[in-house]
């Protein structure tokens, strides 16, 4: 990078809007992870019920 050494860089690169988008993106990544885990939980639930049904038949 050409100009790293001179400035302490208090200047923000992102605009307010871009900052908001960055925030949203971090939140979205959390949501995706939670959704993945939730989907797997449902899968487990389905499998369990399936087995239960077979056994109680």
């Amino acid at each position: 990078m050409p100009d790293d050494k001179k400035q302490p860089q208090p200047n923000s690169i992102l605009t307010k809007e871009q900052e908001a988008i960055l925030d949203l993106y971090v939140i979205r990544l959390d949501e995706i992870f939670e959704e993945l885990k939730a989907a797997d939980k449902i899968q487990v639930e389905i499998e369990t019920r399936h087995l239960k049904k077979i056994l109680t038949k």
Partner: protein
Amino acid sequence: MSNFWRSLFGSKKAGNNRKVIGLPKTIPVNELPHIQESKRRLTALQQLCSQYKSTPHARQIEQVYQKTRRIHAYLTDRGRGHELELFHLQHTDHFLNTFTVILNVHLQHHNVQQEPEVANSRKVVAKSVKRDMQAGLSYRNLNRRVSEQVLEDTKQSVYSVPKLSLPEIALNTYSRLVYLKEETADMQLTHEIGYTSDEEEKEAFTSFVSEKFDIHDISYIGNTIVYFPGHAHTTADLVPVISWNGGLYVVCLEEVRLYPVSTFRKRD
């Protein structure tokens, strides 16, 4: 010899298709390219982190990297290469693109400013900021005096001064809503818009809104569910949210009105 008999009676095939749960996972061959592509993206994210290191946003970009890596690990552990690829295509690629472009443009501007007199660059910047501030200051002083006057007037009247606030909305990321767009004088087509819409659909929507509201440089953020003030029916409406001029607005297409809103943001 036993191999011969086995091949003769066809029993050699037994076991070929068996999958034993609990054994260390081997990744299916056809998913390998996905995994490699995904690793390449992770490396790119890491590079982005180091490029943003000296900015105030370093921590958040770092978070994006960590969280993306977490999803990557989760899906690769379970051998779900396709889902991983889909996730990257819909998210990481766009993110990488946007924030690389932002940084590049910023650096270019920076370099152009600095080239003429490197040594004095700091003074020049400081001076122009100062000039701006002085101009801004006098305006602000004037405005303040006026508002003090107005406040004094209102204090003497019976009205109370309303306090404005932006309602907080939560983006809905999975549902799409339909809007009508007039293609020609007497033909209307329905279009869909949602958080998961592709670039083309979002482009179509923003140009539709630009035209209808006569505002420019807007971008589509997502949908959200809200109650409108003064509407007779009490059901909430799913409506699009746009970003314009650095602020978020809920779009009421029927009334051609914008309502300023804010999204929930963690502050620390």
